[in-house]
């Protein structure tokens, strides 16, 4: 009986786990992920964590927070006017704007307008190329949420509304596959997407490390490099060991030795920090070029070996937050720093793009002002980012022996927050929309059941309806909340072992 079948480590699996922990670094016994692997199966079960086949190979989750409410009926489940008995009064499109893809259930919206709401920039977008390219690795699952508050809905799209003890998807992935990684969960999102879950039983390392400036953040990954006149690493090591000894013996240290803050500090300073520094992440994750305004060489620093390639893929990395986040996300996964990364636009305006605005105010929520234009613009922004990431991940080898690429082991989850209201003034092409619980989520991965829509859309209401998460059978008329199904679906598709979690069976999400 092996872990996969009964949740218990076989002797061979236990020995292998121990050997993996012992290899590599002398810090292995102290790394929290390795410590956990030395626990008994019973204690692991209590944590709710059971692994898939213990092959020691990680899988990766990229969460893209589509802040503001990304409407699935303005993208892959768009409704043509000719299909709807109530076309004029609902969010339906002229037929020509909703393109079909042969052999695929997905739609692709084409949209043009001379302005984006009150902002005088043109919007010309077409989702067709994306759908054609990625349909076989796309899954759209319809959904009904439980909140139209931005922050709450964002968080619930990550927790399934507390489906698994309140932990987020990112935390669950960090727990399953982040063992030994220095920062298993890095979060560049904002609002509810950046909140940690409420499962305090998780190891500290599972919780998201916040990053707000992805381009400059790597400068903070070494305690002395890049500082003019810094002493050698040997001297730094002496300083640290002296400091640690003084802290331990001082009255202050002895008085507060039981303080949670100091215990956490000791682990972060004594275990996580050396691990981060040993990986030379101040170089590997730094895509800044050497310029007079960024004098890396003068301060003894270098750009990442991947720097030029990423600057080409994301040329606006320094001014467009999402591009900078995506570049860092790729590197975090490539260098096995993280198992889960979160990124996404925020509500601030970002300058850039071909017409001067890379991100409109409120991101998708500009739909209050101009629904069609806002949705088209922002979907294009998200899909372009996804496309660039997939391209990079496909080109990045994961395992030379098996020929797997990084993409083979990655799932991208576009957390759409919530939907938008459907009514419009009769025949209006420019209108605003409010928040709505009814929507759908997008996932991309070789691990998901590709070219698949779970659920469907009623063209006469433009509301999505649900599905059986186990079989995938559509359930017309089902409009009740299914947040736990989506949560379970992401983890099921990734192959996480969920026995003991209480999550619903979401086999329909997983590629056979």
């Amino acid at each position, binding site marked *: 009986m092996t872990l996969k079948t009964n949740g218990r480590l076989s002797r061979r699996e236990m020995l292998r786990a121990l050997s993996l922990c012992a290899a590599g670094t002398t810090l292995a016994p102290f790394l929290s992920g390795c410590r956990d692997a030395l626990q008994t199966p019973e204690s692991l079960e209590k944590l709710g964590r059971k692994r898939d086949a213990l092959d020691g190979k990680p899988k990766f989750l990229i969460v893209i927070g589509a802040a503001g409410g990304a409407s699935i009926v303005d993208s892959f489940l768009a409704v043509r006017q000719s299909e709807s008995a109530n076309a004029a009064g609902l969010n339906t499109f002229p037929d020509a704007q909703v393109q079909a893809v042969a052999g695929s259930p997905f739609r692709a919206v084409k949209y043009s307008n001379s302005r984006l709401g009150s*902002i005088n920039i043109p919007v010309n977008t077409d989702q067709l190329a994306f759908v054609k390219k990625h349909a076989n690795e796309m899954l759209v699952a319809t959904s009904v949420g*439980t*909140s139209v*508050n931005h*922050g*709450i809905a964002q968080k619930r799209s990550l927790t399934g*509304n*507390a489906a698994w003890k*309140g932990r987020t998807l990112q935390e669950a992935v960090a727990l399953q596959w982040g063992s030994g990684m220095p920062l298993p969960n890095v979060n560049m999102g904002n609002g509810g997407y950046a909140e940690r879950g409420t499962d*305090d039983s998780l190891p500290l390392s599972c919780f998201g490390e916040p990053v707000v400036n992805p381009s400059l953040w790597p400068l903070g990954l070494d305690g002395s490099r890049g500082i003019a006149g810094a002493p050698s690493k040997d001297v730094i090591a002496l300083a640290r060991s002296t400091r640690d000894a003084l802290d331990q013996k001082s*009255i*202050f240290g002895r*008085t*507060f030795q039981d303080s949670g803050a100091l215990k956490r500090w000791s682990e972060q300073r004594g275990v996580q920090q050396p691990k981060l520094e040993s990986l030379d992440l101040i170089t590997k994750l730094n895509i800044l070029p050497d310029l007079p305004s960024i004098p890396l060489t003068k301060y003894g620093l270098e750009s990442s070996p991947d720097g030029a390639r990423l600057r080409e893929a994301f040329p606006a990395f320094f001014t467009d937050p999402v591009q900078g986040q995506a570049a860092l996300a790729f590197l975090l996964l490539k260098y096995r720093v993280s198992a889960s990364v979160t990124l996404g636009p925020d*509500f*601030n*305006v*970002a*300058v850039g793009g071909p017409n001067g605005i890379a991100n409109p*105010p409120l991101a998708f929520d500009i739909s*209050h*002002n101009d629904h069609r234009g806002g949705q088209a613009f922002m979907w294009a922004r998200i899909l372009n980012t996804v496309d660039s990431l997939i391209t990079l991940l496909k080109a990045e080898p994961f395992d030379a022996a098996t020929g797997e690429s990084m993409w083979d082991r990655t799932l991208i989850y576009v957390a759409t927050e919530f939907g938008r*209201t459907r009514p419009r*003034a009769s025949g209006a092409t420019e209108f*605003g929309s*409010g928040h709505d619980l009814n929507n759908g989520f997008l996932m991309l991965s070789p691990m998901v059941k590709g070219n698949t829509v779970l659920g469907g859309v009623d063209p006469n209401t433009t509301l999505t309806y649900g599905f059986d998460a186990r079989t995938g059978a559509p359930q017309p008329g089902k409009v009740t*909340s299914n947040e736990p199904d989506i949560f379970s679906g992401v983890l099921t598709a990734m192959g996480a072992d969920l026995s003991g979690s209480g999550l619903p069976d979401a086999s329909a999400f997983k590629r056979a």
Partner: protein
Amino acid sequence: MPLPPTSPSRWLLPGLLLLGFSTPAVAMPTGPGAFCAEYPTAPACQGTQPACTYCHVAPPQRNGFGAALEPHLAPGKPRPLSDADFAAALPAALRAIATADTDGDGAPNQFEVEQGSLPGDATSVPPSGVCGGGENPQFKVCQYDPRFVYRRMLSDFCGTSPTYAQVATFLELGSEDKQRAFIDQELDRCLQSDFWRGKHGQLWKVAHPKIRPVGSVKSGEDGGIIPLADYYDDYALFAWSQTDDHDARDVLTASFFVKRSGTSPTTYTAANTLSSQFVEASRRAGNMTSAWTLTSFVMFTALPRNAASQMYRAYLGLDIAKQEGLHSVPNEPRDYDAKGVQAPQCAACHATLDPLSYPYRNYNGLGGLPNRYIPNRLELLFPNEVATLKNTPEQGVILGQPVNNLMEWARVAANSDAFAISTVTDYWKLLVGHAPSPEENEEFVRTWQAFRTTHAYRVQKMLHDLIRTEAYGAP
């Protein structure tokens, strides 16, 4: 619109009975009130009532404590229970599991309730009431330690630690009374500092989650790319209300504005008009009607639920999205804007949220005539919306109390226990480092009650109380 008194037992929602039993059990907003009737001295009931998350994960899904209660709630009666049946059954159900230990943390349920920890959360435990003894040459552990407080106070309010010399001289003051008096004197000095009250200072830090700035759409000083409104006015009013001899309630009730000027010192001055503000004096309610609030929280919407809920959350500490502060109003929600909020899973919160929002109906956000009070706004600016929209009244309800307009809303809010609790909680988090814990509850209640009464809502006087608590000053 006459409304019945707020006794939970008299809140009947006949509509629920008509829904039949095809839907799962709905949330019961009468629960918190019935809970507090059973445990009136519980910390969760001191000036407030427990959130629905006391028994639920997210209603109707129950946590361990709620699940333990359920079998004892009118056993045998068909589900869902009516509000009246639920409220009548809850006390007996609570008593039935009073001696059990639902979360297995070693403390019986009733003991946890009375001590202020959560009976459904194993990580929330009652205060041990025991503080270890022993000697310590540097810290007075478990007791108020003036040296510890002096260092902490200077760091918190002035932004820098005292120097070695300052500490030495402080200790030489001798008696604890003199030391405490000196600390009070230094606190008054630091409360004038830019670190505390200046631009981007500590008071502004308290205000950030309330105002929720978005830099790229700011107008005026440090303006953004698409200037829409100036939130520095909101920070100015907030800082003004929290300083000197000013009434903290002005942040909600002020009919004036505040200008900031200078640095070291920064000064805040009341003003009757500002070029960046457009609501006339008779319609103003502090930061509730600022240009920034109307722009960012009313925005383009007809019925500004987001604005109302954000003010409720920010200034009363009640987050409806987390099922806090629910005071369902009978026959609500009326769903004037046809958003489908009468559905059972929505009505549980919208029965509070919608009447809370009605007084905002004439305050415009973005669009034509932005950031102004416009009589008959819905009729004029939303002519193509559903016909029932224009029936939205301006009268509303907050904390179970009817109000005629937003200014009355602001006064009821500002005079509530919730406002005092929320204000003191803000500073507790800022200065103690966390929300009040069960063992700090007694000091916390004393502090916010004094803030309301003895100190007449003067934050600076309250801060003198706060730094004298053991929560702040015992290492």
